[in-house]
């Protein structure tokens, strides 16, 4: 707090000049686009104000099955996106948390080696990684070839929700590990000793000290996995064989179909839902942390 105050009171010309490029950048590439998204979302093709795009998201229906039943098309898509994203995020968390914990306790050398290994896939293009998974998961792909070698029956993965989840987990896993790891690496090891000293078993130390103190990392990890996976479209197209139309696909399709206003409306609604969700999570975590 002290720092901030002194920064403000010392708002010298040089400081403002140094900050200027960032301010310009933020305005040009963050604020302006967001305003445009909102503007498009609430206007029609002739740029008259309307709630039509927003209400279309909540009300448009499409027939399912033999056509006798109708569902709210975009709510269904959103629900499906949310489901797959939450499953992927949970898998990332369950796999990533223990890994981050062990990583933070390992020797400095092991830590740097493991972090490099985690980062290496991120150096490769996202599209290439997804294509690689296609060749692995195809019915005649590497995985089934391997299963065949073991004399087992081939399994059908590509084009299932499972394949989409595998793709998302693989792509976003590092975004879960790194924030949790960075919080855990900074954690004072004396606190863990103190907890043991005060009667905690290993599980108790984890539950009562490590977990609550690592919550900020968990929250940012969850955000960093949940948000891209909820709005992904490429993974679902490639690994889902286009059978799982997700909210990202919907936005892309409207955009390609040149209905920018509805595309903006979907993006806007998604953003609001995510912001509300994040705020809610942050509050719950704060409440827990300072109970």
């Amino acid at each position, binding site marked *: 707090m002290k720092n901030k105050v002194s920064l403000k009171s010392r708002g010298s010309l040089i400081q403002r000049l140094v900050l200027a490029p960032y301010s310009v950048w933020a305005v040009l590439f963050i604020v302006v686009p967001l305003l445009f998204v909102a503007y498009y979302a609430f206007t029609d093709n002739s740029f008259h104000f309307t709630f039509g795009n927003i209400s279309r998201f909540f009300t448009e229906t499409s027939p399912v099955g033999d056509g006798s039943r109708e569902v709210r098309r975009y709510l269904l898509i959103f629900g499906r996106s949310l489901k797959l994203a939450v499953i992927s995020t949970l898998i990332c968390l369950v796999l990533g948390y223990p890994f981050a914990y062990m990583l933070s306790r390992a020797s400095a050398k092991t830590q740097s080696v493991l972090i490099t290994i985690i980062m290496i896939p991120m150096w490769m293009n996202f599209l290439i990684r997804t294509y690689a998974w296609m060749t692995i998961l195809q019915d005649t792909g590497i995985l089934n070839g391997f299963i065949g070698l073991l004399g087992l029956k081939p399994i059908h993965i590509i084009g299932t929700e499972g394949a989409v989840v595998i793709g998302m987990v693989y792509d976003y896993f590092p975004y879960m590990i790194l924030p949790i790891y960075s919080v855990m690496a900074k954690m004072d090891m004396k606190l863990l000793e*103190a907890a043991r*000293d*005060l009667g*905690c078993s290993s599980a108790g130390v984890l539950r*009562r000290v490590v977990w609550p*103190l690592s919550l900020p990392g968990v929250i940012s990890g969850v955000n960093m996995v949940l948000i891209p996976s909820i709005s992904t479209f490429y993974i679902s197209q490639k690994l889902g064989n286009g059978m799982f139309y997700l909210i990202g696909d919907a936005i892309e399709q409207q955009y390609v179909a040149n209905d920018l206003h509805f595309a903006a409306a979907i993006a806007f609604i998604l953003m609001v839902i995510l912001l509300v969700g994040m705020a809610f999570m942050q509050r719950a975590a704060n409440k827990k942390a300072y109970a």
Partner: protein
Amino acid sequence: MKKIIELKNITKSFDGEVVLDNINLDIYDNEFLTLLGPSGCGKTTTLRIIGGFETADVGDVIFLGERINDVPPHKRNVNTVFQRYALFPHLNVFENVAFPLREKRVPKAEIEERVNEMLKLVALSGFEKRSVSSLSGGQQQRVAIARALVGQPKVLLLDEPLAALDLKLRKDMQQELKKIQKATGITFIFVTHDQEEALSMSDTVVVMSEGRIQQIGTPVDIYNEPENAFVADFIGESNILDGVMLRDRRVSFAGHVFDCVDSGFAPKEPVDVVVRPEDVDIVPEEKGMLRGVVTSVTFLGVHYEIIVDINGFKWMIQTTDFVDVDERIGLYIEPEAIHIMHKSEYSGLFGDYSSFSMEMDEIGELEQIEELAELTEPSEEGAGRDE
């Protein structure tokens, strides 16, 4: 008196470097025992072995007659006050103190009662809801003590708990810790490198150096009857001279034969002779047993500290009489003021003030102050955040 902890032949190495070399120590119930020594002497490792955070390579830790080498920390009836408190930042003052009780699933009402009682003991009533990061260093220290005591351990381990506090606060906390120890009747094992702290608080002082115990005794014993040159030098100021024991109660050093009160040495045995600076009387040169010239005088408030050159050996003398630099004076030493020690590996390393200068001392202090500032910084930041 009942033995509460016994350390038997404890040896411990880290990466091939021996940090504890055959430590044997009995700790009694209701005792305030201090492990005293310079950094790297093994005192903290000893504490950690008792706490269960390190395991001895060789030797046994006995707790109330039972061997507890393999008992993990959370199952030992011993609690620790950590050097930098290690308070849980996600919990408020009350919850920090309640931490061990919640782990033991103590009923809510009892937790409330015991935590409040503890906070009262450490004079922090009314701070229950405060965040620990908003507390000053001294207050954090008290929370750490309350948290360590609330589970009613048999033994409290304190790892340089006062090192991060400023001098005035440290003195207050010394008194307070002593009071708390008396009030609770819990055995305190206190680690410090501050000899004054050790002398003023302890029932028993254990002086350590290089992984070995140099001497165990009451503060008075340690000061008046140091076992070897290391102890004599580390505890207070000492002039340590080479001497020869002529026979019982007769010793020769600094070119003069003195009467003394020690006996039991071999005839003509080479010895180390300790004379404390405050035990030397200044007399006119012609009446002195030893004669020399004053090379420096420093006023320290309660007394002057003067350095006297006697045949090339620089003595430190504390006196309330003013003498001037370059003045020639005589020294008179009473038999009771002379303490004789056997020669040891530390002979000749300490006790000559020829390299002594106040300037050096000040530099040392400055470093300490900087270190202190560094240590207290986080709590200041915390205080800012709360506002």
